[in-house]
């Protein structure tokens, strides 16, 4: 069986230690976490964790069951085979020498992102999109010199119409 990338949307109690329970489950059982993003949902007592992980069918089945077994986990949805919207936010600080400024702004325009901080020597760009888009812009900006960057990891939600149709 081949490893496949999966994306889970996990609704959990918004309590101290819950993230540690999930992280501990993954490290203790040797599962991978590719990316992880956590924040409170509409209700203050629940948080949504979006997690990307990898494994063969057997491991993915165990991951889902083991997550369900944690008392603080409310729901686990595997979005991988469902229509879903997936986004990631990145902040990229790039060297902006006078001769590169126009080029950088063109790239920003083409990728529909924004410059959110400007200095004498740099631009900070805010960008959201899927992983491919992030990779593409990083490749284009690399020659100018990326000073540092921060990424959120993916967040995702199922598409409402598609889930209704598929049910």
């Amino acid at each position, binding site marked *: 069986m081949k490893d496949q990338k999966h994306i889970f949307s996990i609704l959990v109690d918004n309590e101290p230690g819950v993230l*540690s329970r999930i992280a501990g489950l993954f490290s203790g059982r040797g599962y991978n976490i590719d990316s992880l993003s956590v924040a409170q949902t509409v209700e203050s007592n629940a948080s949504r964790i979006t997690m990307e992980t990898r494994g063969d069918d*057997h491991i993915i089945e*165990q991951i889902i069951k*083991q997550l369900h*077994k944690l008392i603080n986990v409310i729901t686990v949805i595997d979005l991988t085979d469902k229509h879903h919207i997936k986004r990631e936010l990145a902040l990229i600080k790039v060297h902006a020498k006078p001769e590169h400024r126009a080029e950088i702004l063109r790239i920003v325009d083409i990728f529909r992102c924004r410059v959110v901080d400007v200095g004498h020597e740099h631009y900070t760009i805010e960008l959201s999109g899927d992983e491919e888009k992030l990779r593409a812009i990083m490749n284009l900006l690399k020659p100018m010199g990326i000073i540092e960057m921060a990424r959120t990891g993916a967040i995702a939600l199922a598409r409402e119409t598609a889930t209704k149709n598929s049910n």
Partner: protein
Amino acid sequence: MKLTGAQILIKMIKSQGVDTIFGYPGGAVIDIYDELANHPDLRHILVRHEQGAVHSADAYARAKGDVGVSLVTSGPGATNTVTGIASAYLDSVPIVVFTGQVNSALIGNDAFQEVDIVGITRPCTKHNYLVKHVEDLARTIKEAFFIARSGRPGPVLVDLPKDVMTATIEFEEPGEVHIKSYRPTYTPNRKQLTKVVELIKQAKRPLIFAGGGVVLSKSSDEITKLAKRADIPVTASLMGLGTFPASDPLWLGMPGMHGTYRANMSIDSCDLMIAAGVRFDDRVTGRIEKFAPNARIVQIDIDPTSIHKNVSVDCPIVGDCKKSLALLNELLDKEDSAEVLGDKSQWLSQISEWKSTMPLRYDQGGEIIKPQFVIETLHELTQGKAIITTEVGQNQMWTAQYYGFDKPNHFITSGGLGVMGFGLPAAIGAKAACPDKLVIDVAGDGSIQMNIQELSTALEANLPVKIVILNNRYLGMVRQWQDLFYDKRYSSTPMECAPDFVKLAEAYGATGMRASKPSEVKETLEKGLAAEGTVIMEFVVEREELVYPMVPAGGGLTEMLLV
């Protein structure tokens, strides 16, 4: 009614039907102990080491079929419970462990006797809590007991900061426990069970494999009925011993690494395996690809993670073993009796042939005591009615092989974690749960020394237990592996220096006896079992006796070493 945290704690523990707790005081729990002194109806058994408190609570839970409770202080008191908690977790035993904690204002400051016990025990508890506000205390305790005893049972830890215990609030009875994210599936899928009926009717070589889940769900009657109804032979894991009477002709013995020849051969040959409350541990399956290669496997378990974890299953049933087996029996009752019974004569005669050609065997000739002989004699003298606890290693395997358990809740051993030092505190816990029963710890000379201090607990609490030490002056099971697989290089397994166990017993105020010849075995056991109070019976046994059969680690079940 205004109550302190400590008063709420005791009130809530009592409201759960608990009348015995095992514990050890300390600074962080001194307020709880102060309150405890007002409650003579809640028996506190003072252990000599916190590890013992948890093993005792574990065995208490298993002997009684209810929840066991222990109470310890913060820091080292809490860390000393970890082995006991991990053992209860792997054996799915319902216990609630209360740990003291420093004042909540000090948490995180590396205060004296502070440790993050909730963090430490996260991977080895079913769930755990740090109670930060006295308002949450009553509800948390109720939830802790609910989680410990429901679904697949397990240990729950509740960490109690000192200021939460001293705070006073207006007590309100907490409502029914409702945890939206925790709803174990008890009722099995009927359709799946109708499939099992068909599988049973078709099967020519069926087999029942019962595990600890059958003990926990109290479904030994249902398993027995199923076996008799359809004439299906039964094997049971270490944790499941006693769920089916060992005296019954359909009994195969335990399977796995030290399983009987016929049990392992039956697993290899069966065409249908009905597994109930088992998790297919590696000590049972041997090499997984060679496990039950010809069988369609039905697995009943309340924990979905147990299904498809190690072994692929053809017919999974998520549900309580008792409900599932009762429904299966009900469905079978509606079927034609002859069809359900089928013709199993060939299968059963094959099994009896395996049994007669390769029974469990040892040779009690000569002048040196064989450990198996001690266990067999113990069975004979107690008529299989005693509660037996064990330590871990050869003593545990010989007990599993030779005692012949007829009833559930009578064999209490650390199965999953394999804790040396489990047996003595476990015996004390079992005796507290069943004061009218004879309780015997079968020990080795190595493991008995790991929690020997609990002898004082037994004496002080007037919980007389009998301890059988099979003394071979070796760490026998490790030595066995060295003998068979490591060119007989006995690295650190000889234990030449041990206490004089007879004098040791006397030093604690117990009775000590020793037998060195086969002719003394029966007499020593008779005297020791009949004597008042706690007794150590030491048997100087054959030093190099090995546990057979043995499936080498990583081997298939049929690749047994037999002699």
